[in-house]
């Protein structure tokens, strides 16, 4: 009886989708709400955004009923995964379990979400399980737009072509291809036009692959085929790294958009590049489940969000985080930023479940470290304050920036960053 009453209240809260309504609802039932949970939150995606939300709902909310669904049994980090390609780290170094979250009382479910019923407030998994929620969090990351590049989907399916833009088996596969490449071979890396996940990531990858071949296959070449007119992040620092450390190995070509693939030959607008290993970072959009849920409402690729709560502008009550979102100006698609989105969302979800007003002045910030050698690192950082007039996050003039030069002090900080953010999100 008590349970039914509470779920009826939750339903009304969602339907009303208003802070004031839920406030009244709570006042109305204050004397009877003795249940152990203030609400059920289902989180789809156990990466930087989703896991952080689970952790902070428990840290800040206490009695929130939290279920985290991911298709993978463990978390494998994209940041630092380029070091695995370079042979400087192993897969075990970038893999962490969900045990810390489970110990906090988060229900961790390994499964594939096949449908989202926003109106009926439940998520369905491939095995038929239904998970009811009062609020839903989607942190689905990105999926790839393969159709525009002939032969790409087939190439990736066959294993001949790798993307390695989601860490895991793809990272292992690309490393094996690299190890098997003959000395004197060509490694070609195709970079899509912006926006894509992790702006400096491709250039870090070029450096890490080059750091390996420089020692193991000194006659090999690393060809960077960039669809963009110039390096999209930390430009001067990467140009300097290419010149100082990898002269004669890395060749950078701007405005080289991949049109199609034949075997491991990259077909560009004006010429073909025959590679021994062809690593294609495909163009990207919000993860499939966001489209299935009908949330993709920006440029046919991304999810627009209300930055005060991280709720989708297409479906209030459904919070969307991280790379899947249509970003605020100068806001990068990064694991660090997804973690920051998650904290805004966790704070807001607890307040919305309690019928309180949400924080009107959130702040998020980003730090991204890139390895240019096994030890030398460069950063980019930014701080984003919410602008109430424009209802978006804006970077603070005069703040943020990049390293003055690559250095080994930041090499240590970069690895500590990884340990701290993994610990922050997974409660390790």
């Amino acid at each position, binding site marked *: 009886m008590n349970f039914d009453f509470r779920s009826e209240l939750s339903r*009304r809260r969602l339907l*009303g989708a*208003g*802070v*004031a*309504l839920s*406030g*009244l*609802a709570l006042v*109305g039932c204050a004397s009877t709400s003795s249940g152990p949970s203030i609400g059920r939150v289902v989180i789809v995606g156990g990466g930087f955004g989703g896991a952080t939300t689970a*952790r*902070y709902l428990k*840290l*800040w909310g206490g009695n929130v009923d939290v279920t985290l669904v991911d298709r993978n049994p463990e978390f494998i980090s994209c940041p630092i995964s380029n070091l695995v390609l370079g042979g400087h780290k192993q897969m075990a170094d970038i893999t962490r379990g969900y045990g810390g979250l489970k110990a906090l009382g988060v229900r961790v479910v390994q499964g594939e979400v096949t449908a989202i019923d926003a109106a009926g407030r439940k998520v369905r998994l491939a095995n038929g399980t239904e998970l009811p929620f009062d609020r839903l969090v989607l942190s689905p990351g990105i999926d790839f737009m393969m159709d525009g590049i002939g032969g790409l989907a087939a190439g990736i399916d066959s294993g001949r072509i790798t993307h390695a833009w989601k860490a895991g088996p793809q990272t292992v596969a690309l490393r094996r291809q690299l190890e098997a490449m003959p000395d004197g071979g060509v490694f070609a890396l195709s970079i899509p036009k912006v926006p894509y996940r992790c702006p400096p990531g491709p250039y870090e990858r070029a450096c890490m692959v080059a750091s390996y071949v420089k020692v193991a296959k000194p006659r090999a070449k690393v060809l960077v085929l960039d669809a963009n007119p110039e390096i999209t992040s930390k430009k001067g620092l990467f140009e300097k790294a290419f010149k100082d450390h990898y002269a004669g190995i890395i060749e950078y070509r701007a405005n080289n958009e991949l049109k199609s693939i034949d075997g491991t030959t990259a077909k560009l607008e004006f010429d073909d590049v025959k590679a021994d290993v062809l690593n294609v970072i495909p163009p990207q959009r919000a993860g499939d489940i966001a489209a299935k849920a009908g949330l993709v409402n920006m440029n046919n690729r991304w999810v627009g969000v209300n930055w005060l709560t991280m709720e989708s502008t297409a479906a209030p009550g459904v919070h969307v985080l991280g790379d899947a979102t249509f970003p605020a100006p100068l806001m990068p698609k990064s694991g*660090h930023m997804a*973690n*920051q989105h998650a*904290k*805004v969302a966790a*704070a807001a979800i607890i307040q919305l479940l309690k019928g309180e*007003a*949400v*924080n*009107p*002045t*959130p*702040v*998020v*910030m980003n*730090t991204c470290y890139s390895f240019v050698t096994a030890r030398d690192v460069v*950063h980019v*950082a*930014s*701080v*984003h*304050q919410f602008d*109430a007039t424009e209802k978006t996050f804006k*970077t*603070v003039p*005069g*703040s*943020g*920036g990049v*390293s003055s030069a690559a*250095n080994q*002090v*930041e090499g*240590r*900080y970069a*690895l*500590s*960053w990884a*340990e*701290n*953010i993994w*610990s*922050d999100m997974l*409660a390790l």
Partner: protein
Amino acid sequence: MNRLPLAAAAALALTAPLTMAQDAHLARNLAATCANCHGTNGAARGDMKVLAGVKAETLIALMNDFRSGNQPATIMHQISKGYTDEQIKLIAGFFAAQQPRK
């Protein structure tokens, strides 16, 4: 049954934007933006500086020195300039009240 609360809610909703009181959890939320590098509640690991338990005056002075350049930094001179004095005060107060990780 639903009619009355909805009407009242609509009236409340109209007045809600006029009250921009500071969020009760603002210090906690701001400090959480530091956790990616400096650990949850400031309990950092590895080479990052532990912020949990640092006196508020010490942290405020350090942030001001980062901003002025008196304290050389790899990155904090850039990040410190993104927060207001008031925000730094709140962050420092929050970390001062935290326990370092055992």
